[in-house]
């Protein structure tokens, strides 16, 4: 079974800045980590491999610095790492990102694709399902439990009010919740090995058979950010002292209403 885990490198902080010209995020100088849900996906893939046999390939689209995320995945025990990188890909929205990753998946082959549910920077949860559609396989999102049963996978998926126990045959795509599998730590030998392995790089030329250049990057993306603004930094808000309990309660309800909480 060839398991491919798609990961994203995300900033390890909410201290992010925007480029005032392109309105895209400035990622330089911000410490980066593997997105939590994706790391859980790596762990689940490693366990599935150990249980059912096969290999785990980790795939990341991003700038050359994303190399560190891929090395970390190798140190956890992944067999192979691939970086999808190229100028043509910059500024892609979720549709275009899914198209690019799908082209890479078609090139390298797969039985089971695992993505994280969503990334902590964009929070869209769209790329997983969009890859599944683009490569034409069934998807099961929000997976919190996974095991192999003969040719099939049996997964437990979580909705707000219910869980589904689902049987799905590869090829298929799963999106992982953080609670799917607590990631193992890298061990020293693994880290050493990880830096001796080669990371394969796929650029636009490697993927162009399956990729329309008009449908990727900033220009080819269906959606564009036209305006970004930071919310005001959180400082002390309103403090109500010397008010009656009823007035205090009314203020709390108003605040909850204003924040769409109640």
């Amino acid at each position: 079974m060839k398991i491919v885990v798609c990961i994203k490198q995300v900033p390890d902080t909410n201290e992010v800045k925007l480029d005032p010209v392109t309105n895209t995020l400035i990622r330089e100088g911000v410490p980066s980590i593997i997105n939590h849900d994706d790391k859980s996906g790596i762990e689940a893939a490693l366990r599935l491999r150990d249980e059912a046999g096969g290999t785990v390939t980790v795939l990341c689209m991003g700038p050359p610095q994303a190399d560190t995320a891929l090395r970390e995945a190798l140190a956890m025990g992944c067999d192979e790492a691939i970086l999808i990188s190229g100028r043509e890909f910059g500024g892609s929205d979720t549709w275009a990102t899914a198209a690019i990753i799908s082209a890479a998946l078609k090139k390298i082959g797969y039985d089971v694709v695992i993505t994280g549910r969503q990334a902590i920077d964009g929070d869209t949860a769209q790329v997983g399902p969009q890859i599944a559609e683009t490569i034409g396989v069934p998807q099961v999102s929000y997976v919190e439990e996974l095991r192999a049963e003969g040719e099939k996978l049996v997964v437990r998926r979580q909705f707000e009010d219910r869980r589904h126990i689902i049987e799905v045959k590869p090829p298929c795509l799963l999106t992982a919740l953080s609670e799917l599998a607590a990631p193992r730590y890298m061990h020293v030998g693994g880290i050493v090995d990880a830096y001796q392995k080669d990371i394969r790089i796929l650029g636009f030329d490697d993927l162009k058979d399956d990729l329309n250049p008009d449908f990727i990057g900033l220009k080819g993306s269906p959606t564009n950010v036209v305006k970004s603004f930071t919310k005001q930094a959180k400082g002390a808000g309103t403090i109500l002292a010397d008010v009656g309990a009823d007035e205090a309660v009314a203020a709390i309800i108003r605040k909850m209403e204003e924040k769409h909480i109640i």
Partner: protein
Amino acid sequence: MSKDIYVVVEQRDGVIAKVGRELIGEATKLAADLGQKVYAVLIGDAVRDKAQSLIEYGADGVVCVQDPILKEYVTEPYAKALTAVIRDRDPEIVLYGATSIGRDLAPRVASRIHTGLTADCTKLDIDPESKLLLMTRPAFGGNIMATILCKVYRPQMATVRPGVMKQLERDASRKGEIEEFKVAFEPSDMNVVIREVIKEEHKKTDITEAKILVSGGRGIGTPDYFNTLRELADVLGGEVSSSRANVDAGWIEKDRQVGQTGKTVRPSLYLACGISGAIQHVAGMEGAECVIAINKNDTAPIFDVSDLGIVGDVKVIVPKLIEAAKKYKAANA
């Protein structure tokens, strides 16, 4: 030419999700700006009898897709049904609730018909000049807001967070057309097998996943006061969490502890009851979108990170808050 706004109304076991009515309400405003109509799309098994209520909440018409294969939500049959409706009707805008189902279905459909999709919007407007849909959403844990356009592709699509938009008053005299839209399903559309559906009254208690946390500190006085906080959390649809002191005292389980040595939480609301706000505690909850604190001590550091601070006695305010929240929910159900 693309026209009209379609709202994909979610139902589970035949019960319409409130976010569907909220989106119909919002869509009527957008439609007025465009001079267009609002249609609800209702997908499920034997759901036609729910359609009239959507007209009463503001839809001009309802498109129903009914089939036994649609009884429980599965991505592919629902995506097939919705794609067929969109291809046939060519809407200008399609809106979905940003629920687990909406966030599973919408991206699948967006890729199939090759159009843009904006996730988790909290604000929608029509640009007065271009007549494009302005979709505004938070990113980076709510620290950045972005306004997004889908200029070329149609429909313009967005998922919208539940609870953000307002449903209209129900008007039983409203009339509209209810149409049954036929989609031919094949057995192969069911490309996964649901072995079991496990319904839950109470969600899991992982406080890092909770949208609302009612958190108790030393100021709650006694261990059994967590029962009162639990009651408030139940009314608000949240969970109970705690500062370290109460965990160390054995008043509540360790997995509910917020802070440096506990868990880091990012709920929409963190309601700090009798929590002083030591720096180790704040480190675990400062990512909350909204903090409301109740504390007797007006110099408690928790007030420095609160959107709203109430100087007062938790034991007086919380019971009244439970009643007020119940009343509010009953009035706005």
